[in-house]
């Protein structure tokens, strides 16, 4: 039972991550490869604030969101204002690499490659979320909130302006709107939810180290929204379902032990290629992601 609950917790963390990247990449058209930096900053800040300063999970999460927006959203918006298309994507890769370099080498703060162990479980009014089921309920609360938020937000005039930023920045400028502002809004909301995902991940595993927040992880989250599709809510959710549940389902396919691990990865990769080939905009995608 705990096995299933643990998988569902991880699934929900990826749903939050994918939904948040979808706003930036799907709705606003900023093809970005630094989601793991946003996510990792959230995880590290929450952990440091909880372990070193002794803050409660929710207080730590609040400050982590503020600091993460100040740091990452500002830097990313700044680069989005100066770099276009693939050059912006390259800028986000640079941010991701710098982030990894910082958490790997700033040992006084992050304990570098040794990671941060003993991250306490979240606590709210005396209720400690210290069992898989309790943690699942906490994660479910955040995931449901994220889905509802993005479902509501997608219908607002503000979100339409993000979509217009994606479609034609020059025309938006001619109409007297400031694209940089809309990019900042989009990136900041992305950072908020990535921080939540990072905080949940850190407190769920009780231990984080830099290897969980590499460029590979950013590519993976992008793959989730590419497979599921961008520009709506169903795409990232279905992409996360495929990413998390498919490898688990493949565990039940009987194969000789010597080849099982590699064969499962090959089958998994083939299924992903098949989906992308069959539905180039992803399973539920409204838009093609443009570099």
């Amino acid at each position, binding site marked *: 039972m705990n096995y299933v609950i643990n998988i569902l917790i991880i699934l929900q963390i990826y749903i939050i991550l994918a939904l948040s990247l979808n706003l930036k990449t799907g709705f606003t058209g900023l093809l970005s490869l630094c989601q793991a930096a946003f996510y990792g900053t959230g995880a590290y800040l929450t952990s440091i604030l909880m372990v070193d300063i002794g803050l409660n999970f929710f207080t730590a999460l609040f400050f982590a969101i503020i600091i993460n927006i100040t740091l990452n959203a500002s830097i990313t918006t700044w680069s989005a204002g100066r770099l276009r298309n693939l050059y912006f994507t390259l800028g986000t890769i640079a941010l991701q690499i710098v982030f990894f370099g910082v958490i790997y080498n700033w040992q006084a703060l992050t304990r570098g490659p040794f990671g941060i162990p003993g991250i306490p479980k979240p606590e709210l009014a005396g209720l400690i979320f210290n069992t898989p089921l309790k943690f699942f309920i906490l994660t479910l609360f955040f995931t449901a909130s994220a889905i509802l938020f993005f479902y509501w937000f997608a219908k607002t005039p*503000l979100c339409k302006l993000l979509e217009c930023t994606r479609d034609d920045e020059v025309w938006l400028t001619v109409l007297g709107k400031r694209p940089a502002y809309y990019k900042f809004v989009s990136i900041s909301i992305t950072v908020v939810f990535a921080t939540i995902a990072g905080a949940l991940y850190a407190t769920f595993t009780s231990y984080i180290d830099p290897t969980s927040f590499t460029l590979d992880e950013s590519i993976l989250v992008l793959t989730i929204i590419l497979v599921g599709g961008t520009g709506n809510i169903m795409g990232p959710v279905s992409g996360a379902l495929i990413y998390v549940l498919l490898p688990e389902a493949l565990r039940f396919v009987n194969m000789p032990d010597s080849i099982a691990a590699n064969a499962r990865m090959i089958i998994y990769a083939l299924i992903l290629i098949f989906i992308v080939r069959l539905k180039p905009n992803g399973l539920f995608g409204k838009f093609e992601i443009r570099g």
Partner: protein
Amino acid sequence: MEELLIIRDLNKHYDGIIAVDKVNFTIMPGTITGIYGDNGAGKTTLFNIISGFEKADMGNVVFEGEDITRKSVIYRSRKGIGRLFQIPRIFSDVSVLDNLLAAGNNHEAKYLHNYVLKPAAIRQNILKDRDKAKNILKEFNLTSKAGLKAFELSVGEKRLLSLCSLLMNEAKLLLLDEPFAGINEIAALQIQNYLISLKSRGMTLVMIEHDKTKLFELADSVYEMKQGSLLKKTSTSHANY
């Protein structure tokens, strides 16, 4: 009546090539002004300078009495300068109606916190903008296309949509870069009629065209542009459309 736009001694050079050379002219409100000339005569550069996409080397752009020479595109747009491009610019992946709503001036809806603090004001503005957008679409015969994605429109319709967006944005001066390029005669006639109707409502239009006849049919005054200079002004008598 006071001039809407005054261009004074405007100069622009690119690596020694003269693009705009000591251009002077004034635009009165409620008029249509035409500019024609060969490719490379400097017409689009002149529009780029007026709309703020390029900076002049020398000279001034004065709009409604304010010197806006060093102001940004966004500032000029908010003052009321609208620009229509030769290749129509639209928000292709959103609906025709949403194109217009995005062009509207619903300032409250820009800020996320207002959705919590001022939901009633946002709702009211959305309804107001929606009504305004629907009226504009009706006027330009695009009501049946309101729900379509903008990329599904024909070139002529896209150009009309751009024009509608500028009207939604409450532009006072429209800079039209070859509004009849790449469309058939019927669509061109339709656009021509819309432009006349805009003028009759007091809008001010400046048009670039290769087709001299079109300009003389429509404009109150027509300038020829050659090698960056405005050569001559011909006044027509279309003030009574």
